[in-house]
């Protein structure tokens, strides 16, 4: 399956991926409102770690055998068999955050419920990839080499 892959040698540490992730997952889809005025503020599903010398954006790997899915006590966290996307069903999630504890990549964020990358379902390309100014994020199928 295709996932967001970060090329650290090209990452500018500008963190625009975070800005645009928030915008894409906001109510208004407006960059200014989403990042300044919306309440509750949208949560970025992607995080840039590092400094100006070396940085990389990290988000959900959509693992083959996701620990978060195994650990979910309500069955809210599932991996879609067809698309491979790991996602949270907000109707079932009780916010216990067990998933957060078990994720080896630190890719579950806290909001009212567990919040995580959904690869911007319905769009051709996730917003972080589309808006990366240096193509440091690519949306690719890495096969086994995830």
């Amino acid at each position, binding site marked *: 399956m295709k996932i967001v892959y970060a090329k650290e040698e090209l*990452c*500018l*540490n500008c*963190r*625009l991926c975070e800005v645009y992730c928030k915008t894409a997952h906001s109510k208004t889809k407006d*960059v200014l409102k989403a*990042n*300044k005025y919306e309440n509750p503020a949208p949560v970025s599903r992607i995080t840039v770690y590092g400094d100006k010398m070396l940085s990389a954006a990290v988000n959900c790997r959509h693992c083959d055998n996701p620990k978060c899915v195994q650990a979910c006590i309500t069955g809210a966290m599932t991996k879609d068999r067809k698309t491979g996307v790991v996602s949270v069903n907000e109707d079932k999630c009780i916010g216990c955050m067990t998933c957060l504890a078990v994720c080896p990549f630190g890719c579950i964020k806290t909001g009212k419920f567990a919040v995580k990358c959904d690869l911007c379902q319905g769009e051709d390309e996730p917003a972080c990839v589309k808006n990366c100014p240096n*193509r440091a994020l690519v949306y690719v199928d890495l096969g086994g080499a995830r």
Partner: protein
Amino acid sequence: MVNYIPRRFTVVRDRELCIDCGCCVRQCSNECHYFSDDGKTALVKSDNCVACHRCVDLCPTGALRIEKYICDYRDNANWTPQYQQEICRQAETGGVLLSGMGTPKPYPIYWDKILLNASQVTNPSIDPLREPMEIRTILGRKPEKITVEKKGKSTVEMPPQVIIETPIMFSAMSFGSISLNAQKSLAMAAKSLGTLFNTGEGGLHPDLADYTDCAIVQVASGRFGVHKDYLNNSRFVEIKIGQGAKPGIGGHLPGEKVNVEVSNARMIPEGSDAISPAPHHDIYSIEDLRQLIWSIKQATDNKKPVSVKIAAVHNVAAIASGCARAGADIIAIDGFRGGTGAAPTRIRDNVGIPIELALAAADQRLRDEGIRSRISLVAAGSFRCSADIVKAIALGADACYCASAPLIAMGCHMCQTCNTGKCNWGIATQRPELTKRLNPDIMHERVENLINAWNHEIKEIMGGMGINSIDSLRGNRLMLRGLGLSEKELEILGIKHAGE
């Protein structure tokens, strides 16, 4: 310390639009943006702003604006603020003023005073979408005439020729003065466009091994990175005598830019200053140039044309003729508006002549001597658009060298501080945190797009003139008319005034 010089620009942050994402803070290598202590509010300090627009272009909400810092001096047409500021800077440092890129002074730009022709009634214009429109150009020394066994069979022995698919080549910019990523972007673009890039005097980095068939390798006064394989891994070899932005001046790459990669490519110790002497110390006269040309031909088994690049100086026509007679196959003339990574400001702004006049004079001189068709003439020194290129070719150039335009395509905003090594766009810098900002995969596409766009425009202009081969544009000065030029200027350019 008080430095007596007001800042140049003010960065204005619109608080209504700023989302404090901090992108600007993390992007500005001049440290014009910073966070408040709690890390929540982005602030500005404009002192070091060079108007490179990195922050402006990346700001997701358009919250940033750069304004000229207006601080009036008492009016004085003679002692302008610029001269006063330069005096203060020199009073402070005691040094030669340095600048990057071409001269910003308002010297006449003849391209803007030359108009092009088009066909009407008596001669049909040609539609480039319907008819082949040829811009292929062949550089190199030509024999006096062809010899044939019969029609269709040539028996002439041709000296090495270089075919390029557009009359636009990328001028010399060394690895060292620009980043490897920038050079690689140009190399990738050159390869896909069927044209050439020029290594400058920086040697050839091993990462560019795939691009040797579109490389012009330069031999300059410092001889950095020059060895037999370097000469042979090229399409042609260029002896750099001078540069338009700094005629008569050598080069100086400060030691801090000589990192391990630059040091390897240039074959000099890491951290040492790379100083190119003002003259080649083995060329003190034209006969010495001849010897160097023949040495290079020997080293390359006569398989590579040899170009000689000279700065456009007062006597350029005679010098060009001398170079042709010394064995140069290609002569590149660099006008005084040409760019540079770093040049003494006074030299850049006061030495040399415009490429338009230099090219016209050299082309005519070579024709008067009956040798123009034997060699190739390349013009350099600030081509801002396709029309400039068309005008240069009509004045007599075979091809044009462009550097600033592709740099702008890669993000350069002409902030003219290349010499500081803090280029926020990752072009004129060797700092790894900055060079990684220039992704060759993106930038080669942008440069290709630019040149392809220019190629289309050149074809469109040629079609309008009723010309379908660039061969028929070359030296076709009847396609040009001057506007608002003096008799003398028209005479030197060899063109008529509009309306004549």
